[in-house]
Each structure stands twice: as C-alpha cells, then as structure tokens.
C-alpha cells in the first residue's frame, strides 16, 4: 500500500493530449464559454477598478449594459460600429492572402498608412486643379501603388535572400510612420504639423442610406471576392500549396518566388485600398495615427477566423464591438483611457487562450483508480 502511494506521488496529476479531430460544434462551445468567462472577469475587474461601481454589486449590470450601448444605443452608433468593422475587416482581408501562404506579414499597419499617404499626397497637390472624379481615380491609384510597393519590398527580399519577413515588415511600419511625419513637416511647416481636413478628394456618399454605406458595401464585395479568389482561383490554390509546403510547391512546378511576390502585391493592394477608404472616405487628412493600430488588430481578426474571409465578418465584428463597448465604458464611468484596453485585453486573452483547449484536452490520470483506492 505504501509503495503504491509512493508511485502515485511520482505521477503527474494530469496530462495533455492533442485532439485528433476537432468537432466544430464543441469548438464553438469552447469559444462561447471563453467569451462568457472573459466578460465575467471583465465585470469583476471593472467592479474593483471603477469608483462608481464600488460598494454596489447591483450596478454591475450597468456595466454590461454600457458595453452593448457602445455599438447599438442609437442608429448613429450602429453605423459607426459598422464603419469601424468595415475598415478593420478590410485590413484583415489584406493580411489574409499572405497568411494563407504562411508569410507572416505584420506590416499591414505601415502598408495601409502608406496607402493613406499616397491618396492624400495626390489630393494635396492636385486638389482643385483636376475634376473631382479624375482626382479620386488618381488618389485610388496612388494609394494602391504606395501600399503595393510597401508590401513588395519585404517580399522581394524574402524571395531573393530569404530574409525574415516578420522582422522586415515590422520595421517597414516604423519607416512608414516617419515618411508620413516627413511629409507633414513639409506640408505644414509651421506649428503643430497637423494637416487640416482637405477640401477636395472626398469619396462620394450614396444618395440613399448612411454616409458610411458605400464603404461598407465596398468591403462586403471585397470579402466575397477574396473568398472566391482564395478558394476557387488557380492563384489561390497556389497560395495554399506554397503555405503548406514550399517543397511540394517546387515539386509540382510552382514558381515559389513568383507566388510570394504576387501574393504580397495582392496584400499590399488591399492595404492600399483600405488606405484610400480611410484617406478619402473618412479622414481626408493623414496623421501618423491614421490607421491607429488596426493593422495589428487585423492579424488577430484574420487568425481567429482561421484565414477565412467570410468568418472574418464575425471576428472583425466581435473585435469592433469590444472596442466601442470599452470606449463607451470609459466615457460613461469617467475612467482613464487605459481601462478599455484592459477590458479588450482580458477578453482577447480568453479568446486566444481557448484555442489551446480546442486543440488539446486535459486528461486527469487515474481519476478512476484513485477513487477505487479510497473505497
């Protein structure tokens, strides 16, 4: 008996085994549980940190109500939520082709920012001198070009010298920020170096519906287009093969270098297009913060959706919902701007963490035999 105890003490309490087949329904259940747990932990955190909630547990429900208010309180808020979601979705679409190829492009931030810069540069120099429609087309071309160039540089280095694309694309983000700063200093030599709203080159608004409707429809069309491109086109097939195994790609006669470069151009074009939507459709100006970190958020959106453009509608919606809810909380409860980040961080932690439990399961050892021993 004593020997048995000794050996039991040696054994670990549980171990992890990989699930061979992931049941989509149970995976979804795990994700829902994770989000619910995340929200609960958020509520507790808020209860501890927000003064207005102190001492009155019943007020916690205000906290959750406020969360939903952020996106759905009014029609204006709803449209704003949809607009944010559309922009995030568009950048997420942009990073997706490269990710399907296992090319870890984390430079969407910089590529999009360059897109904004490209379109604003055209608007700044040619605004008023050209008819508006010509100006818009020129702005679009410039945005696409800037985005594509910014994306193709790391791809060329990767294809030619096998440089690390993650570091390279990350560094390009900083370069993009400084390029924007440079132009701002040139354009606005005095004072704050802040470029005011430009008069020309505004993306037209549809005669019906909301001012953001056109952007939303464009992104929706792109989503469907990219889905078809990845799933049914020859190029999409090549991207998948290169992503799965470069050697298989070479074996089957695929020119791997060309596919890497071409795919990054597609990514860059989509980033540039997003830049155009931001620059021409929303801001009509450029700052170093025009993209505001969405280029990085897009990575999570794309990854959570398992690089499927249609599923991304859900994930980008979720992240946008979290962001606007958290912003609403900081406004309503008059707390510092860091709290929304904490809340979004907690929920993302749960969502990403739960992927582990989707792919692995925890098995407790000898749960049954120990029970017998107790008897």
């Amino acid at each position, binding site marked *: 008996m004593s020997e048995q105890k000794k050996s039991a003490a*040696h054994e*670990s309490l549980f171990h992890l085994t990989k699930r*061979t087949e992931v049941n989509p329904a149970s995976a979804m259940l795990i994700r829902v549980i994770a989000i619910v747990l995340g929200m609960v932990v958020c509520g507790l955190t808020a209860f501890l940190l927000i003064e207005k909630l102190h001492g009155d547990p019943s007020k916690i429900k205000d906290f959750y109500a406020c969360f939903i208010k952020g996106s759905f309180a009014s029609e204006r808020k709803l449209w704003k939520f949809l607009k944010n979601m559309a922009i995030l979705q568009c950048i997420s679409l942009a990073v997706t082709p490269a990710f399907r190829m296992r090319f870890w492009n984390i430079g969407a931030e910089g590529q999009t920012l360059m897109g904004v810069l490209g379109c604003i540069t055209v608007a700044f120099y040619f605004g008023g001198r050209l008819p508006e429609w010509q100006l818009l087309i020129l702005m679009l071309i410039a945005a696409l070009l800037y985005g594509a160039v910014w994306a193709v540089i790391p791809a060329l280095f990767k294809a030619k010298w096998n440089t690390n694309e993650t570091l390279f694309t990350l560094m390009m983000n900083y370069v993009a920020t400084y390029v924007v700063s440079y132009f701002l200093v040139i354009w606005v030599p005095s004072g704050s170096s802040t470029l005011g709203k430009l008069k020309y080159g505004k993306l037209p608004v549809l005669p019906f519906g909301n001012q953001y409707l056109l952007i939303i429809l464009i992104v929706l069309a792109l989503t469907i287009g990219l889905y078809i491109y990845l799933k049914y086109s020859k190029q999409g*097939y090549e991207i*998948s093969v290169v992503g*799965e195994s470069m050697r298989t790609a070479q074996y*089957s006669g695929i*020119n791997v270098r060309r596919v890497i470069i071409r795919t990054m151009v597609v990514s860059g074009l989509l980033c540039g297009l997003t830049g155009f939507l931001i620059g021409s459709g929303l801001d009509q100006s450029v700052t170093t913060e025009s993209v505001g970190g969405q280029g990085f958020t897009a990575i999570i959106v794309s990854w959570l959706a398992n690089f499927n453009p249609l599923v991304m509608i859900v994930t980008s919606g979720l992240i946008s919902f979290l962001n606007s809810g958290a912003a609403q909380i900081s406004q309503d409860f008059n707390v510092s701007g860091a709290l929304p980040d904490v809340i979004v961080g907690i929920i993302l932690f749960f969502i990403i963490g739960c992927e582990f439990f989707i792919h692995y399961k925890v*098995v407790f050892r000898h749960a049954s035999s120990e029970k017998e021993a107790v008897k």
Partner: protein
Amino acid sequence: MEKQVALSMRGITKRFGSVVANHNVDLDVYEGEILAILGENGCGKTTLMNMISGIYFPDEGKIYKNGEEVVIRSPKDAFDLKIGMIHQHFKLVDLFTAAENIVLGVNEKGRYNLKSVNSRVSQIAEKYGFHIDPQKKIYDMSVSEKQTVEIIKVLYRGADILILDEPTAVLTPQEIERLFDVLRRMKADGKSIIIITHKLHEVIAVSDRVAILRKGEHIATVDTCDATESSLTEMMVGKQITLDIDRSEPENVQPRLEVKDLNCIDGEGIHVLKDISFTANSGEILGIAGIAGSGQRELLEAIAGLQPIASGQIIFNNPKKDRPVTFFHKSMRQVKELAARDAFHDRSGAPMRLKGMSRAQIKAQVSAGNVLFREDEVMNLRGKTPLEIRSLGVRLSFVPEDRLGMGLVGNMGITDNMMLRSYRKGRAGFVDRKKPRALAEDIIKELEVATPGVNTPVRRLSGGNVQKVLVGREIAFAPKVLMAAYPARGLDINSSYTIYNLLNKQKQNGVAVIFVGEDLDVLLALCDRIMVVNSGAVTGMLDARTATKEEIGLLMTKTNAPAKEVAP
C-alpha cells in the same frame, strides 16, 4: 540456471487521441538475452519502447525493474534505472567529437576530464569489439560509426538494458553482421538487449526470443529456435500471406533516359553527385541501392528538375509518335521558340515554322491540331524546371521520399492533391475540381484507399494509404519514366507489396521505372538491374538476377571506384 527477469511490463496502454498505440501489453525481458520486438510498421513497437525509455508516459499499466515497480517520466529517469535507448534517428551534436557527445548530459562528480573519458570510451569499445576513434568529429563519421557512438553513449552511462530501434535500417550487410557480433558479446556480458525490427531474417539470426506485436497488442512471445519466417509472418500480419514478386522478363527494352556525367553541387558547396552515368530502359526496373544519403535523393531531384546541375546531360528519348502541340500553361512564347528551332511539322510532315504569323493565326493553327511535333526528338532535361519538362511533353513521374512534405500536401484532401499536377489546365483563372475529383474517386476505388472521403486531409490517412494516393496520382498521368524513392518505407507488408506490384505493372506497360530502395532483399527480387551508389558516385551496376546481397553491400561502402556501365 534460471534467468532473472530484468524488466517487465504489465497492462501497458497508450493512446494518442482516439488511436490506441498500445493496448494492455505484458512483456518480460530477461538478463543476458536478446529480445526482438517484431511487428509491422505502425503496430506500436517504438511507442512501447519509448515508454520504457521515458519519452512517453503510459496511460495505464505498470513497469517493474528487477521486480520493483518504477515510474519512468523522463529519459533521465530511464538512465537512472540503467535503461538506454538508441533511436532510429541519431541524436548527436555534429560539431562535437565522439567522446564529447558521449559525456554530454552525464553528471559526473569532479572535474570534466576529457582524457579519462577518452580512455573509458576506448575501454568500452575494446570490451565489446567496437571500432571507434573517440576524438573523431561526428560530421566526419559514417552512419555506422554514428550508431556506434550512440551505443557507447548508452553503455558509458552504465545501461544494462539497451533498446535499439531499427538498428539495421541504415547499415550494409557487412555492418549488420558486425553489429550483431557486438550485440552477442553484450549479451554474454549479461546485458538485456531489445531490438525493434520488422526484418524476419535478422530476428532469426540474432535474437533469443521474439515478441510479436500486432495493431498495438502483444500477440505472443516465442523462442526464436522454434520459429520460422513464415510462422512469424503469420503472427505479425494475422493471416497467411504469400510474399512473391512476379518478376517478368523485360520486354521491348529501349534506352529511355540517359544520364551522362552528371555532377551536382549543393548550396553548401558539397559535391553531392559525382560523374553519374547510367541508362534507364523502358520495360525494366532499375534499382538504386546505397546507404541512405549517398546521393539518391539528389539524383532523382536533378532528373526531375528540382536540383541545379553543375555539369552533365539528362537525355530523354521518346518513341516516335506525332502529337499535336497544345498550349501548355499559356506558353505562346514557348511554342514560338520551339517553332523557330524546327521542332514542329504539319500533317504532311513538312516543317512548320510559324514565322510571320500573328498570334491569332498561331493560336488557330494550334487549336486545329495542325501543329505536330514528333516526340522521339531527343530532349535534354538539363536546366529545365519541372514545369518546362512537363510542357515539353515529357511524361516523367516522381514519387519522392518525403511523401507529405514534397509529394502531397498533408492538409488538403485527395482531390486537391490530384490537382497539384493538373490545376493549370482548364479555364483561365479558376481551378476545375471536377476531373481531379473523378480521378481521386478512381484511385480510391482501384487501389482500395481507406479514407472517409475525397476531401479528408491526406495526413489523416495511414502511411500505406498516403502512398497509394501519391503513387496512384503519378501513375495516372501515364508516365514514360517513373521514379520512386523508398516507396514502401513505413508501409505494412500488404501495402508494400501493393506498391511493388504497381511498379511491376508499370514496367510491363513499357515504363522505365527507377526504384530507390533500402531493403536489399526487395531490390534483388523486384529489379532487373541494380545500380549501387556511394557518396554521390556510381560504384557498380549489377544484374539483379545474379547479384548477391554481399556483393551489393561491398559496393555500398566502396570508394573511388571508376563508374562502370554494364550492358543489360
């Protein structure tokens, strides 16, 4: 004298997800014996041994060492219990010497003294009859020497139970004999030796007892002296099977692929292929034998257009036949180029120049099937990419060694894997999944591939089924040359013979088959000629009907031999 039980296992079960790798296994190992663990690939031999050596932890069951229950949770625990395992894939630091590798991870008291290590290594080597230079670096060593280092590493730590996982897979017949001598000497010294293998004649040659595993279960343990090859096979497979390869006489033999003075230098400047010359004939199977890593992979890849060639020629001869030109992969440019070189003729046989025609005219001519080319034109494949080779109309099929890493995409279904070869065809822009799907269904039916469906990722299939998919696809494109590298590696006996028979059928259809193998018995039974390579050079060409294993073994380690071409 009754022998002592050194190690016993009771009720060992190990599952990976829903797969049961071992189920309720009881096994005893005695002191001073050689126990062979015999079983087909994937029957759980290695998993079982990994549980003794601390790599895996059993889900259920107990292990006893000298009668006492023990818990082995790490390789260190195993070493503390004097259990050592020599893995199939060596785990050595290339830049270190033998002695440095041997002491790596040993926690000895006192100062680190390489001299005393050297002398102790030499002592161990002398005692059991190894040949080893403790100060030689690993990267200078042959496979057999590396294995010696692994064994001494285990002995140095005082192991008295040694587990060898497929130790003979990479050795020549002569080296195998030497290894067996060493094992016998260790046995005489009272050590327990467990060898994992699926080669029957080796089991009979060296072991005292045989434990047979089938589908994760322990079927029986028998004394080797009471066993025969056929009785062991029956226990291993579970039914009586006949293992015959029906080797027909080659028919209509013509030179199909001629390799002349081929030299390749890899990315690190190493001369991987040296002046290789041979001819592969239609209607015959050419075997390539050699120690793993002697340039077999590079040779096949060079022919397939995947390896840059430093010098030499690869000439492809095709039987005469008029074939209309088609636009392979939008290659108007290529059609024009070939036309300029008088490669084409019209229906009457007059040369077709296409010069001065507009694109539309050329397109019309080609679409009407008026532009013909004669396939017997000798083509040099040197410096061509796989795509160029294919668009020249050279039907070259290649079953690479690394099935899921090169031949197939593991995460894609069978349909999408069929498309690897054909996706470029069809309407521009979008892929056509209809034909690949039909092909996938055909292969599943014809080759009896066990799969839940055409869209199940192929990595979820068993090794044999994966190989059937790959070979099936390569054969489906009616090759003129079929190259297969280790096509039966890791397959169970039935699947192996399915593959051998497929190759045989291709030979009877007039295909030039090039077969890179490791099991010399199979090479001798299946092939018509056997080319032996060592360190990237051809060391001999033998007639498979008269050659012996020993002859091949000698050639496998022979160096600096002038390459000889023997007429078939």
